[in-house]
């Protein structure tokens, strides 16, 4: 009876969602205050009933209610309860319900934290989000009902969760990723509401900026966790594959970066308004496209749970309505809101423009590479695949092109600046960075490496630009500490995110250039040396886990005769499904990871194929991503987002507060 209760709650939520998408929108049109004032209450109502529905599904998983179809196909009584919990979203139906829950959460958050918004604006924003919610709730109810029962014929035990998903990183990866994906719906709703109201001003940019920053931060964490998970769970030490599903989450991220920066220009200078609106539409459309690519089964990967053409068609139609509708609205309304403010060619606006062009083009190249095989297949031109070499060849030069401008960005001035000032401020640091980047790679074991030198040059350039600007900003303060304390959170957010980007550059290049990877056949007792570390294959043991049995190789690692660590990779066989899984053993470190994974038994005498990897500075990449994400979160603490209604209503455009 309880699962039906959840189903019923979801139906009520859908009905409330329909009301939310109709009544306040009508109220905003007819200027009916009562109708508009219903919006926050309806948004909370949707959240409450979706949450009940989600809780019911969670209870079904935790109590092993195998009469519910998704529980029977994705859980097992032997599954540790932590994974029973994450199994809720380890399947198509449940993950869609999570999508809906998070969307309802964002909608309710907008309702709660927007007391300073004009009522008309708030009503429109919540209505647009309500409409998106209706789209996804009906998708869930009509094509992928999570509460479908297997009555009669309830199985005695479930099919188990895909072993790849039985991992702590995977418990939080989907919620974080969805927080980001769905969070861009707030920026989208603000853009649509502004278009409807014809009011695209600095106030609009100021309202939607914190939401966009937070959504982007969550997306950053989500992508980072996915990459980290792939690294330790897939058993071959890769961390980014340009897999279509990764690209599906990476495209909104790239467009989001462009949106963040374009919003800054719109807020501070009242420029790029139409472009910012277009970017907001574009970013959320990419989130929807990502959902379509992953959920429709047109792509195949661990993420594609189901290949049901009806589902794909539904999302495609919804995508067409959202994208088509918002672009039509844009075409009708955008020309009336264009700006007539100018800026000099040497100015912060120009640099941010470079950022926008680079990130938009990067998004399009990734989009093209991701969709190319689908198009060719649809046209009957054969089954192509576009591999990492394409993406690397296109994406890396674009990023390298970006960094010279990015280094100058923080210390540039709005409206009009001079090249000679940049030269004066940055000439000395530039020389220092060039010298460092030419000499430091010489310390590497294999001699000078051009790519590492280039990475150091770019990352160093970003760092000195930031340091130089920090010095300028604290010069007039009584002490350095007090000067630093006086800087606004939004400034610190920028510093953290840019430093994180520099760290990621170093991590990516160092690990791809200096990694040593050897796949070997080893028998117990054998000793192999990789990058100065001596790996001894001590013995092989059979171990038993809660829901699997495993062969465990035990290796001891020494360096210069000193013991470093014992590593015990496993080859697991999960009991319920019979699936084989590689569990890598990793000794992590800031400067290097040691990575050992088992392949398969080869030949006689207990020999195994074993991967021994030495991966320098691979953690820097993820640390950098964490910094970027934290930077995005920190900006929200800025005082200017907590001003009351009166302050916001001030005529927008130019604003004196620090960037």
């Amino acid at each position: 009876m309880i699962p039906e209760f959840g189903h019923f709650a979801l139906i009520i939520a859908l009905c409330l969602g329909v009301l939310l998408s109709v009544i306040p929108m009508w109220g905003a049109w007819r200027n009916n205050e009562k109708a508009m004032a219903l919006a926050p209450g309806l948004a909370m109502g949707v959240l409450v009933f979706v949450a009940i529905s989600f809780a019911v599904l969670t209870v079904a998983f935790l109590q092993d209610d195998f009469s519910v179809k998704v529980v029977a196909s994705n859980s097992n009584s032997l599954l540790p309860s932590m994974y029973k919990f994450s199994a809720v979203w380890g399947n198509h139906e449940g993950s869609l319900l999570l999508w809906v829950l998070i969307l309802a959460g964002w909608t309710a958050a907008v309702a709660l934290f927007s007391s300073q918004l004009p009522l008309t604006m708030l009503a429109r924003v919540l209505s647009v989000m309500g409409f998106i919610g209706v789209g996804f709730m009906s998708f869930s109810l009509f094509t992928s009902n999570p509460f479908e029962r297997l009555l009669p014929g309830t199985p005695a035990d479930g099919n188990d969760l895909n072993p790849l998903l039985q991992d702590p990183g995977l418990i939080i990866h989907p919620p974080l990723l969805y927080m980001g994906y769905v969070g861009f719906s707030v920026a989208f709703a603000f853009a649509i509401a502004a278009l409807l109201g014809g009011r695209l001003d600095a106030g609009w940019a100021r309202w939607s900026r914190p939401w966009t920053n937070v959504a982007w931060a969550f997306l950053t964490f989500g992508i980072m966790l996915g990459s980290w998970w792939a690294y330790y769970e897939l058993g071959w030490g890769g961390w980014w594959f340009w897999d279509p599903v990764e690209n599906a989450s990476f495209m909104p991220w790239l467009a989001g970066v462009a949106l963040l920066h374009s919003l800054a220009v719109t807020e501070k200078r009242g420029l790029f308004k139409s472009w910012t609106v277009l970017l907001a539409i574009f970013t959320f459309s990419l989130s929807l496209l990502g959902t379509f690519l992953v959920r429709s089964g047109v792509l195949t990967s661990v993420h594609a749970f189901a290949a049901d053409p009806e589902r794909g068609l539904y999302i495609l139609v919804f995508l067409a309505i959202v994208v088509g509708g918002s672009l039509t609205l844009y075409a009708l309304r955008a020309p009336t809101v264009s700006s007539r403010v100018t800026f000099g060619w040497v100015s912060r606006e120009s640099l941010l423009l470079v950022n926008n062009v680079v990130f938009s083009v990067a998004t399009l190249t990734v989009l093209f590479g991701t969709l190319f095989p689908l198009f060719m297949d649809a046209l009957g031109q054969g089954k192509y695949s576009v591999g990492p070499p394409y993406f690397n060849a296109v994406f890396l030069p674009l990023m390298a092109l970006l960094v010279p401008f990015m280094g100058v960005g923080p210390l540039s001035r709005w409206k009009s600046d001079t090249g000679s000032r940049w030269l004066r401020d940055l000439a000395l640091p530039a020389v220092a960075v060039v010298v460092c980047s030419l000499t430091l790679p010489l310390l590497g074991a294999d001699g000078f490496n051009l790519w590492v030198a280039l990475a150091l040059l770019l990352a160093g350039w970003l760092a000195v630009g930031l340091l130089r600007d920090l010095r300028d900003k604290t010069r007039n303060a009584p002490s350095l500490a007090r000067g630093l304390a006086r800087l606004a959170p939004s400034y610190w957010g920028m510093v953290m995110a840019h430093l994180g980007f520099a760290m990621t550059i170093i991590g990516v290049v160092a690990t791809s250039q200096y990694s040593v990877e050897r796949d070997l056949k080893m028998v117990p007792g054998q000793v192999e040396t990789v990058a100065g570390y001596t790996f001894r294959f001590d013995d092989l043991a059979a171990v038993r886990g809660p829901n699997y049995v495993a062969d465990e190789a035990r290796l001891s690692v020494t360096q210069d005769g000193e013991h470093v660590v014992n590593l015990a990779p496993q080859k697991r066989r999960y009991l319920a499904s019979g699936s084989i899984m590689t569990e890598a053993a990793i000794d992590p470190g800031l400067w290097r990871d040691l990575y050992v994974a088992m392949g398969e038994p080869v030949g006689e005498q207990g020999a195994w194929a074993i991967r021994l990897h030495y991966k320098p500075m691979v953690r820097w990449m993820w640390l950098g991503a964490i910094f970027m994400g934290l930077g995005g979160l920190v900006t929200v603490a800025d005082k200017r987002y907590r001003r009351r209604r009166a302050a916001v209503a001030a005529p927008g455009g130019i604003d004196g507060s620090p960037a």
Partner: protein
Amino acid sequence: MHPVRRQRLLLVLFVVLFSSAAIGLMVYALSGNINLFYPPAEVAAGKAPVGQQIRVGGMVVEGSVQRSDNSLEVRFEVTDYQASVPIVYTGILPDLFDEGQGAVAAGVLNDSGVLQASEVLAKHDENYMPPEVAEALEASQRLQEQQDG
């Protein structure tokens, strides 16, 4: 010209130049880095190019997997039940690679019709079949029925 309009013109020129450069780069990168899927029947019929990156997939033939005694070299055959293609791969195979299961190998075909694979992909879970393989098998089954009927 009005300064706003002049700025807009320069802006458009900049964007156009930059995107053409990016598109050029894209086309160049794409031309060298895409590879096409061939079912085993087409490879056996000599339709697949030699010395070029391609993908071949099908079911791994039962009993065809042979491992070398002193290295990680593996030889196996994939089939669409019309023809089979021998594949050589050195390295660690994915967990779900097995005889009688679907697999896709990416690599270069040599003169004697053996695919030197640089990558082998197997399915992600036990219900999943690589779509290229599924389609190749379906096509070969249709052909079989036509011949029988």
